[in-house]
């Protein structure tokens, strides 16, 4: 994992991957929701969870926005890869499908969330969302990132980090060594 961290983290000083991920996650959710709504595929999940279809769609958009935020938080700098971002996004879309409400819901409730062609369309919608997330992320990132002239300086960031560390409570202040006499 150290290899992964070394390559993905440190989006500073210009990039804002979490913000970009959340915004793109929400934006990419609309075409996916449109596909689901146009094919009436939302009815199955609506019946399973006993909620109106519009609420399911709304919750999905919010959840996919959160998934986009997580995408940015996990991939950080790597999400901005122009050549590989479609793959990251596609993988993330499949992950949200495989480990999201569709699979977990059926395991918890003991019945399928969707069956037949509607189940295939829900998968396709997740893949579409992921693909759009991956492809659009670098585009949006380039619009919201800091410019090279206005970026926060590494020195400022280092000082902020140090200040944060000094503010954090430390165990040895709270737990004096037994028998030790403070002067």
């Amino acid at each position, binding site marked *: 994992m150290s290899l992964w961290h*070394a*390559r993905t983290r440190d989006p500073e000083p210009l990039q804002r991957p979490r913000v970009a991920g959340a915004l793109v996650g929400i934006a990419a959710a609309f075409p996916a929701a449109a596909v689901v709504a146009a094919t009436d595929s939302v009815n*199955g999940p609506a019946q399973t969870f006993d909620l109106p279809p519009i609420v399911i769609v709304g919750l999905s958009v919010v959840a996919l926005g959160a998934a986009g935020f997580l995408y940015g938080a996990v991939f950080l700098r790597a999400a*901005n890869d122009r050549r590989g971002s479609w793959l990251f996004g596609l*993988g993330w879309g499949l992950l949200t499908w495989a480990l999201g409400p569709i699979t977990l819901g059926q395991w918890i409730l003991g019945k399928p969330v969707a*069956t037949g062609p509607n189940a295939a369309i829900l998968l396709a919608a997740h893949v579409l969302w992921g693909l759009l997330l991956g492809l659009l992320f670098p585009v949006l990132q380039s619009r919201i990132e800091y410019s090279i002239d206005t970026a926060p300086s590494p020195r400022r960031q*280092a000082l902020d980090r140090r200040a944060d560390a000094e503010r954090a409570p430390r165990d040895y202040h709270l737990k004096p060594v037994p028998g030790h006499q403070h002067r």
Partner: protein
Amino acid sequence: MIRVISYWKAIIAGIAGAAAWELLARLLLLAGVPVYDATKEFGTLVAAATQPALWWPAGMAMHAAVGALLATFYAYFFWSWLKLRPPLQGLVFSIGWAIVTIFILRPQLQLMHLDGSSHPPYAALFGVADGWAPPASIIVLQAVYGLVLGALYTRPVGRPVGTRRLPAPPLILPPVNLALDSGHGLDEFMFATGIECSYPTIEGGRWRMDEMAMCGHYRHWRRDLELVRALGIRYLRYGPPLHEIYLGPGRYDWSFMDAVAAEMRRLGIRPIIDFCHFGLPDWLENFQNPRVPEALAAYAGAFVERYPWVRHYTPVNEMYVCARLSALEGLWNEQCKDERSFVTAACHLAKAAVLVTQQVRRQRPDAIFVNNESSEFYQACCPDDDVRRQADFENQRRFIPLDLLYARPLRDDIRDFLLDHGLAPDEYDWFLRQDVPERTILGVDYYDWNEKVIEADGQARSLGELFGWYVITSQYFRRYRRMVMHTETNYRNPRGGALWLWRQWHNVERMRKAGVPVVGFTWYSLTDQIDWTIGVSAAIGNVTPVGLFDLNRDLRSVGLAYKQLIEMYRPHVSVDPQWGELEDVPALVPEPGAREAAS
């Protein structure tokens, strides 16, 4: 970017893996074995089960597409994590995917075949309602897929020796024979960076690792040059791709370099041209070839004739490192592992540097030479005579190529070592008779692995930064007494890059305050590099995140820090060129042993 992958290799490997899966599945089904029929499962999503002529091609196309997609995941996220042979890496990857297939994908695919009124048993939601045979067959078939994928997806970067990969030049080229620079060529402190350009061969000389290609410079060269200027940098260490330009004796392809040179001129970039960077053209083979020095001198002559405005040159980059990794540690080029080969390579490299220097000076008398070498230091771990002897020997060995280049007599035992391992006495005398140009700058590279400890078992292990650039460079300065430039540094953890930059800069400042004329500083390189964590010894494609920019050309923290450092210090670091051999600088730390000798 976390690694460079070969999409076409991954796609072919994935399709081949899916085809192998299908072949085995069909054979087992024909034999009556109850295996999971993934192709039918896919195909019957779009065609009736009674029409195999329709569902099989449709299913196979979908299966191959999934196989190809999975292979690109493998290439991006899994390849090279495990230190296993490639087929075994594929096998391990496939086992993980088999579990996902059994518990998630297959149940979901089966649900896609149901109508709304069906209600599968609870166990079917986990893919375990119909016995052990389908899950077991998925594991076996997925293993076959993984083995084929792993066996076929290898060497995602580099290319076979004998092939070329230069981009097509622009249709309209600006003129390149522009007016020469005025002035003496060293009118300011040289804040520099470099384009990583190593091009050694590996695998017995059959595979070329071309960092410019792997890092995307051939594709993004124009943007790279703009980024140099965006940070306020004017000096660029640049190694034209010798193996792509120098096609044979008297045969050159300048198309790429013409375009790059013209753009450098337009942007006001002063290149420090590096004639040989860890590799040779295919036809020159390797550094054991005695034709190398003359051939490189001819290339340098042709280069200077074509680009007469270029003032700064590095005849041969890091001769000691090149000789050591090519001929003693067996990683690059000739891949020898013996002292005789090392001596041969070191002497050929030093002779090449001498002849290149002479050739350039004939055509450009005011050229400035930046002879960079990796600053090495070996520390004995313990008071053991053998270990101390070895550390002492290695501390002399690091100087061999520079000593030969600067016509400096070697210590007796080191001279005897060279003579015992193939250097003829008249060749040694030839080196000592050479004239060292006045306009020479000693380039000292420094990384956190340059200082090593010799352990009791005789192995050298990296110590991290023990004494630092200031102390190690003091040793090099005392030996050669030339103006100094910090010609390479970087840091492999991006979070520590800015801090490392400032540490190196403070070393430079301390050296200048001590009285040594340090005339330049370099963060190497402009972008991240490929496979330098393993010394470019295998074609893996992993990114080494050391650049001012990553390989997407997005700024790293160290890039911004360097820009700010330059803005802060440029008005305060002046250069007063002191050509030729300089006086000693008493303020420097004394050489080990010098204090005892003085007392």
